[in-house]
């Protein structure tokens, strides 16, 4: 049975020309689920619109 993220993985795989063999898919899906779960934790945290991102760039 197809998992909910499989269509997404398929679409991004094509968009990025990034191969995902069938055998790797369960592990990729499991890792993506963790990334998205942790990403949601960040997403849920309200920040002011003016917040600057943190990376340092020195020209």
């Amino acid at each position, binding site marked *: 049975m197809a998992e909910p993220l499989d269509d*997404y*993985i398929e679409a*991004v*795989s094509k968009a*990025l*020309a*990034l*191969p*995902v*063999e069938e055998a*790797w898919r369960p*592990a*990729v*899906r*499991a*890792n*993506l689920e*963790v*990334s*998205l779960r*942790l*990403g949601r*934790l*960040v*997403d849920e*945290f309200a*920040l002011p619109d003016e*917040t*600057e*991102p*943190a*990376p*340092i*760039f*020195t020209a």
Partner: protein
Amino acid sequence: MITKPEMTATEIASAVAGGRMSALAATETALARIKQHDTILNSFTDVTADRARAKARAIDAEIAAGKKVGPLAGVPFAVKNLFDVANLVTRAGSKINRDLSPARRDAALIERMEAAGAVLVGALNMGEYAYDFTGENVHDGPSRNPHDTTRMTGGSSGGSGSAVGAALVPIALGSDTNGSIRVPSSFCGIFGLKPTYGRLSRARSFPFVASLDHLGPLARSVADLALAYDVMQGPDADDGACTTRGVEQVAPLLGQSISGLRIAIAGGHFQKNVFPEAVEAVSRVAKALGATEIVDIPEASRARAAAYVITTTEGASLHLDRLRKRPNDFDPAVRDRLIAGAMVPAPLVDRAQKFRRWYRGQLAEIFKSVDVLLAPATPCTAPKLGQINFTLDGVELPVRASIGIHTQPISFIGLPVVAVPVPLEPLPIGVQIIAAPWREDLALRVAYALEKMGVVSAPSPRGL
């Protein structure tokens, strides 16, 4: 003078500069010890014996000619194999990078160590592309813990932890993106310094996550950490994130009293998901320092989540082309994490970086009333090699993902940390001494005081 395997860098440099021991003898001791023990430990991937002997002889010639030598004269050291070493291929723990041409020039920090008289003896095993907390490597085999060779060294600077923990060399250099100096320091029972983000040049080292990568030393004493740290400081235009601050020497300050320092224990996230050994280690350190105040670090769990998101996506971006062209040459576990990282929507990454700014502000407020924070370096002592899960409070947790839960929220905002080893039996475990940005001096002074009190020390290797 007869060399002893566990001589510190400070002792070696003093003996060499004072003419009581030759740099060549110190180098031969390290090379012999590597030969004797590294077939089991697997901490080295390259031993640069010819280069080391040539360098040692040059130092001895300078001393014989009456010239002044540097503060690390004759001190053997080794580097994680993501540092460029001239004429070696920088493999960064991977199979793929072995097809690159050999490096033409040493990494900036190797140049600075050698300018101070240190002698490079080789390059060290590491987790593939530094995306690792275990010290295991599918291409080179795992580095092994010198206190129990069936156990992990911790990663990703696993060879660095193993080589110093086994006293093959007194100093090694490693990298720390989410904990990769502090975790092996904890599991291998040694001292490790992750300086402030941007403090030490990363020029000519293979990157992982540009906005989180730090380099630093691992050693068997605080004085050795400070000695190496001091000679590696200074601006470097070849690393865009490297500070323009001048050198701020710490070694001369180590003996200063810490009685006026405000030291607190990190609460909340840092007191969860810990085994009794980690609780005991923090408790011993806190008691010795008279620290009783517990300070909650707001949103530290979310900080760890944001560090995870930035790591997986920046790492994926770095390796995107290799993932397209040579996916079967990666460690499958690393490949699958990176592919997943490439699929994380961009707004989440942007929000993680913005959260990072907010979180940094929260810690800046805390450091107005606290000088130093104490936290576990790892939730547990070294797990068994290959161990997948451990059970904590009746809950089964994945080992790999859980090892860095207390280091990630700290490196996320680039705070300086000294990991100090508490020599528990049967295995040591580390505690993080955390200071405000650019205050490595405070963390090192507290670590030094603990060492003098006998609360923390690098135990002799128990598994050899």
